[in-house]
């Protein structure tokens, strides 16, 4: 479920990229257009989708889908 939602967010931000079915191994820089700016756009879109807020530190540190899933799980508890 979490993966599905994140996949949706990836598609919203990286409109021109092909998003693979399995996304858990994806991380910052995997696509050409995945730079610091689109990464921030992605994090903000994920926040909206899951109705959570990352802290500033988390935003600095979260670089991969795996890490993002972990933080979301923690926050949803």
């Amino acid at each position: 479920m979490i993966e599905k939602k994140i996949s949706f967010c990836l598609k919203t931000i990286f409109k021109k990229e092909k998003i693979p079915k399995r996304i858990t191994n994806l991380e910052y820089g995997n696509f050409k257009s995945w730079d610091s700016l689109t990464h921030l756009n992605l994090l903000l879109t994920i926040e909206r989708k899951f109705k959570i807020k990352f802290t500033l530190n988390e935003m600095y540190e979260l670089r991969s889908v795996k890490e993002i899933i972990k933080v979301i799980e923690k926050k949803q508890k």
Partner: protein
Amino acid sequence: MLQKLTISSSSFLLPKHPAWDLLSNKYNIDYKYIGNFSGALLSKSDDQILVNILFFSDFYDENLLNDFNPDKVNNPIIDLIKKKAEVSKQPLIFALSSWSSFNIVSSVFKKPLAEKIYLDFISRLSSLQKTYSNIYFFNLDYVFANLGFSKIFDRRNWYLANCRVSDIGLEEIAKSLNSVLERIYLPSKKLIVLDCDNTLWGGIIGEDGIKSINLGEDGIGKAFLDFQKTLKGLFNSGILLTICSKNNEKDVMNVFENHKFMQIKKEDITNFKINWKEKSENIVKISKELNLGLDSFVYWDDNPFERQKVSKALPQVLTITPSDKVENWPDQLRTLNCFGKFNATDLDKKKTYQYKVRSQFVKGKEKATEELSYLKSIKLKAKKIDLNSSTLSRAVQMTQKTNQFNLRTKRYSKKDIENFGRNKKDIIFLTDLKDIFGNHGPVGLIIGKCLNKKTIFIDTFLISCRVFGRYLESWMLREIKITAKRKGYKEIYGEYIQTEKNVISKEVLKQHNFKKIDKKKSDKIFKDLKITGELYASSINNIKFPKAKLYD
């Protein structure tokens, strides 16, 4: 091809965030000046709409300054804006925010600096706006306040990317820009169709009777009263009010004439349709009688069933879904963006009256068996008005807004029109029209552009839809002939460029004895003027206008 739109700002704003989709679907957005608004003002391009999003707290550091002269910040920016406004043909839009985190206690004695700079800035921008009509500005803080500043601003984005606002903030900025751009580029709504029962008053007049309907100084009655007051305000700004109600005419008129709390009077209503026919049918009839396109109509009715039928039958009409709580209606009506009109002139106020007159004219015309004798009987009087400072803005407005009788639909700015006025070889005049129905004011504009000593070209020829069917075009062509002859011209060219709305003017030149000609043959005369439509020509002596007699 999408119109180019440059978005620039004083701090960073997350380009390509989905919040911008609203605009990027309609415009080709250039983000290169985000975070560099002065670069955008300095850029040489003059064909792009330019948006400047300014956060005044970007211009100083409050903690490092004790006192501060707003001039220091504003002088150079205002200078840049002035220079840009002089060359740019496109709108310059400023979205301004003076928000800063402030301390309520210290603010009692000392105004926040951002606010000081902001106040100085807008007073100077307002005075620039008087000279440059392509400058638009609005206060973003009012937009932000609706949702609350704590939702709009996001410190994390500031430390990560130098962006002051949250994604919600971006969305609000994009939405407000979209509303402003729509008002610049799309025609505004001109008319409201209103229901009566449970819309202008609470209750049903046919059942409750005049004494029991809700309209007055207490409770829910006051909400209806305020709703009517807001409608009256729209009426005073030139929006037409019409009634379309399933009712007995006598009952409704009784309320209009005898209820002491009615804010809208009988004479404020341009057109009544009180009967039991389908509302869509009545609305089409109103549109025909007033000669106003359905796309300029707004329809307000509390009844969802009627709304659904109208919006299905007439999708061009903007059908409002009123809040299910009447107390919200006055605000809802006030905040509708579809009426907003830029560059309203004094003449707008007179228009309501003129549309009413038009309504009577159409009815009279139906009755007249012989068109010409009818037109003769209404005593048409046309007058040439030269271009001067008081008619200039009306001339500009007509080029911007006239869609139907308009041969080339060239939209001109104040500066463009002034340039025509300056060259003595060109011919430019407006036409004022009077008849027994009233004084219609300036309703026509014709511009003849000198191509060479002997040849003149009809650059602009337009007539307001309010006075169609009166052969004013014949009179105007006769006037331009007289003037052109006096100036020594021998030949006259005209062009018809088809648009979605101007089919009515397609045959005009032909009807006045112009001949359609091959555009390639005359390329030389036109120099840098590009002919894209149908080209017509006539020798000055050959133009004919049999119907101009109506005006003698």
